[in-house]
């Protein structure tokens, strides 16, 4: 593995030498030049973020959900696991069980507000983009077949089969998966939590509507409201524990702890992503950034020039390289 990384840095010095597919390696961008796929190892990054990723609304929503999630976990978990030794201590920290339940409800409603705020932001932003003809579904969270291919490609890369990581959009397969999981989890938790909070209301609504649609034999002896109530009890707790485990062991590790992101990414506060991360995992979005931000074009052009001059001073005209046969092939390949 060390050798392959060696070859990669060699390639910067002498492009297209010993490379499998140059069109995979180089991406030609008008007015910038040919960008090697592993340029992210050589860019300067501000840890606070260089390129825009999230609007201020998304940052606020994330903070709201983050804080309410903490409160929901801290007050909900000791109720679910009420027989463990730390449960009474946590509950008394919140001022008794009745206060803890109140906090749980307030946090739940705040989270629902954040979710509604998010829907309004997303719908509004999408409509605005559609009307100004800027909308591109590839830059959204909508899952595509490409995400599956990207996952396979990435796995190949991790195994050492593929030479580079896939070129991914603003949201990669991991993020789309997590986003879908959040939508599903929120719907389940909101529905089940409401059923637990208003059992009498639920008992009046369910048999009148859903109960008539389903055959009685489906659920055995119980009545429909009892059935849905036990389903709600089950799903609210299970879904919540799952959310906690996924957030604690996957989300946080992924965004803050894995190498290259450690000790912390500032994206959730600044709404900006580092250049290095953008090029590594969201290359196609970086190409969009190059198109939209003149300063970024300027930076990349300078970097390419600098790298080529510094690494191979014996090659006299830098322009010759940009129009070498390999890049001619790469030309039609690049996507905006």
């Amino acid at each position, binding site marked *: *593995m060390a050798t*392959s*990384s060696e070859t990669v*840095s060699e390639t910067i*010095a002498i492009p297209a030498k010993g490379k499998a597919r140059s069109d995979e390696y180089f991406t030609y961008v008008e007015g910038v030049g040919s960008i090697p796929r592993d340029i*992210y*190892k*050589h860019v*300067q990054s501000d*840890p606070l973020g260089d390129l825009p990723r999230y609007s201020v609304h998304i940052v606020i929503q994330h903070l709201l959900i983050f804080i309410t999630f903490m409160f929901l976990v801290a007050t909900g978990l000791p*109720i679910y696991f*009420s*027989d463990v030794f730390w449960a*009474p201590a946590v*509950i*008394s920290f919140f001022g*008794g*069980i*009745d206060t*803890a339940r109140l906090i749980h409800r307030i946090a739940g409603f705040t989270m629902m507000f954040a979710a509604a705020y998010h829907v309004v932001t997303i719908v509004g932003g999408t409509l605005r983009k559609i009307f100004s003809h800027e909308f591109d579904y590839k830059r959204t969270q909508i899952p595509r077949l490409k995400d599956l291919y990207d996952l396979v490609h*990435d796995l190949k890369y*991790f*195994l050492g089969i593929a030479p580079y990581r896939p070129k991914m959009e603003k949201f990669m397969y991991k993020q789309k998966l997590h986003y879908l*999981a959040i939508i599903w989890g929120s719907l389940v938790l909101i529905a089940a939590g409401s059923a637990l909070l208003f*059992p*009498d209301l639920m*008992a*009046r609504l369910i*048999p009148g509507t859903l109960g008539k649609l389903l055959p009685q034999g*489906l*659920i*055995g*002896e*119980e*009545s*429909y*409201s*009892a*059935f849905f*109530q*036990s*389903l709600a*009890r*089950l*799903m609210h707790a*299970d*879904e919540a524990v*799952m959310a906690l485990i996924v957030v604690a062991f*996957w989300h946080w*590790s*992924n965004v803050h702890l*894995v*190498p*290259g992101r450690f*000790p912390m990414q500032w994206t959730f506060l600044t709404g900006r992503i580092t*250049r*290095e991360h953008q090029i590594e995992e969201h290359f196609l979005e970086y190409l969009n950034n190059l198109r939209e931000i003149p300063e970024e074009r300027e930076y990349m052009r300078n970097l390419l020039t*600098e790298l080529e001059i*510094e*690494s191979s001073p014996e090659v006299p005209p830098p322009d010759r390289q940009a129009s070498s046969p390999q890049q001619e092939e790469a030309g039609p390949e690049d996507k905006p």
Partner: protein
Amino acid sequence: MCHKHRLIGRIDENGKRWNYNVDEAIYNHSVHRKIECRDCHTYITKIPHDPVTEVVNCANQCHIKPPFAQEKFSHQKIIDLYNQSAHGIKPTDSEALKQAKPYCKYCHSNPLYFRISEERVAYGETLRRCFNCHPQSGVIQAYIHMTHRLRKKTSRSSKEIVELCAKCHQDTALMKKLKVSATAQDAVETYNQSIHGKLVRLGSQKAANCISCHASSGLHDINKKDDKRATIYKENLMKTCQQCHATPTNWFAGIAVHPKAEHKESRIVFFMSIFLRLSLYGAVLSMVGLMLFETFGRRRDGIKLVLRNGTTWRGQSKPGSKKAK
């Protein structure tokens, strides 16, 4: 007199030591502080007294006259109520069942009469409880004039009530021997899994404990669910739920208060629980696995979990990389 001495007692035939001390400091703060010893211990006629063979009868009339009442006070009413309940001893009961059934002093142990936890009880509820012992006439006026112990709840907390009932009802072997129904056998266990049980265990005074549902304000009239007088009898169930839940319906009353851990009755819920558990493990394991695999895979990118210049950002951790070669 003699019982004020702290070490008064005896060693019985089996070598067991009995302490007969009555601590005045405790007794004077108990509910029965105004009652003379011999009002309850009526069999004592001379001092020093003969060896005690009888037990206290709570149905005795004592020398206290309740306000606005002609007769002397007695717990007779509540004992009558109790005797009619599921816990009262019936002539048809088996010998083992007669033995197992609790009586006054089983729950109302003397230390309890020392004020444990005080909590304000709602006005209406307090008055309803007065009628358990006092005649209805005049008691309201008396209540308004005097501070009464019932305005402060001096009995067990919800958690203690559940623990008290669980003493016998959690003993599955005993319950099986006494031939109680299958649902009653694991009633404590299922209750503890319900939201009521969890909240009570965490100290809630609002959530329903055993007697909130199984007894009326008489507190002693616990009956089996096929008994028409029972608060959990099908037709009384709505009224029982109504004590806390604002608008119960017939559907609502059907919701399981004692939920079973494994929903054998409802297949969908049962399979759903398995499915959810599997999806939980599946999702977590695959996601964490992917992350670890990714971390492993990205190492060939030359990336390391080493802090340099305060971060592992490649751009900063390898400042010289640009000028490599």
